[in-house]
């Protein structure tokens, strides 16, 4: 296990899955392994009778029944998973960086979470010089083919033609344990934002995205819930955002 890192003044909270679960358990009054509790206490995460106050909204959101969003981001050979749990006044965001290791945890306003997710899915790249000359529409035969192009560091598959490529899938559940649905699939190809949607015969279509439309849908998924996401592509089979905390 990794020792937790906690610096509330700098917005730093990094810890592994067992410590994060223990933190949520402690806030809920459930018993916690003494060794884990000691590590949490040493890091300054515990206070008498509960958790350090700045951590309170985070563990309340993670232990609550609010909706979850999970953004799976693939770069070539690198996978990042960001899971958000929506609480009363904001949302806890838990990011598992490529290579595993520590979970990085933040608490954001709902708008802050939406902007964070929007940046990750590729909105805002216009400001970095992308956007001009959108790539042509392409078709990909199956979800596996879409994902496989990001399995190694070498350019391959449908995304081989682009120097820089990312694939992002945003899924949500209305509450922990509920079935997960895909709300949005985007890719960023040499700085150009494209959206992946359903095509004929189970194929997927990759086409230039409307960034305002993508932003509005991300925002609605954060604040509105399932019925407002509107027209999501069919979810890849057998995968869900799950009820966990990270």
């Amino acid at each position, binding site marked *: 296990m990794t020792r937790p890192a906690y610096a509330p003044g700098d917005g730093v909270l990094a810890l592994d899955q067992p410590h994060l679960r223990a933190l949520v358990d402690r806030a809920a009054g459930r018993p916690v392994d003494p060794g884990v509790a000691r590590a949490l206490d040493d890091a300054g995460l515990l206070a008498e009778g509960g958790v350090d106050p700045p951590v309170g909204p985070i563990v309340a959101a993670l232990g609550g029944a609010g909706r979850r969003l999970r953004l799976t981001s693939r770069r070539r050979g690198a996978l990042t998973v960001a899971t958000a749990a929506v609480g009363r006044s904001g949302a806890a965001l838990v990011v598992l960086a490529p290579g595993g290791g520590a979970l990085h945890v933040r608490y954001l306003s*709902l*708008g*802050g979470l939406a*902007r964070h997710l929007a940046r990750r899915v590729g909105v805002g790249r*216009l400001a970095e010089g992308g956007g001009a000359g959108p790539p042509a529409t392409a078709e990909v035969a199956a979800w596996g083919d879409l994902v496989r192009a990001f399995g190694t560091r070498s350019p391959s598959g449908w995304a081989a033609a682009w120097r820089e490529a990312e694939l992002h899938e945003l899924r949500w559940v209305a509450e922990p344990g509920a079935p997960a649905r895909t709300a949005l699939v985007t890719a960023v190809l040499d700085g150009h934002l494209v959206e992946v949607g359903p095509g004929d015969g189970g194929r997927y279509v990759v086409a230039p995205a409307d960034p305002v439309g993508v*932003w509005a849908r991300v925002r609605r998924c954060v604040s*509105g819930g399932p019925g407002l996401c509107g027209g999501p592509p069919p979810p890849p089979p057998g995968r869900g955002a799950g009820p966990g905390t990270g």
Partner: protein
Amino acid sequence: MNAIAGPAWAARAVDAAGDVVVDLPGDWVVEVGPPTVARPAGWSGVAPAVVVAVEPDVVRGDDLAAAVVGAALARLGDPVVVDVRCPGDDVEIVVAHRHWGVDVTTVERHRCLGPRGRWIVSCSVPDTDLAGWAGAAQRIVASLVVVS
């Protein structure tokens, strides 16, 4: 939050003396500028509001687009530049950001007026109303035209 009708007016903008003149529906109020801020009378929220301003510079084209993006990133809270377009000679930018503790999306339209400077129309909508107002905000800023 109040429900208001969509934009149904055309603005009359910079007059001969260089002052900004905007025609708005009768139930809207205009606060003293600059910048001129117009919002529906009795509106309880921060937005939507139409802000009209004139900047003295004469930047245009790609330079104007770059300046608008740079200003948004430098001046707004936690900004995400969602979109930048150049319809005709204008520059239109859509930015999601934090404003006075409220999460909003702002649409801004910039037009170079030559020696008279740059005409700016800005409309912000709270993100909670984004579904109904994102398109309306873009129509608002596009409908306010310079007539002089």
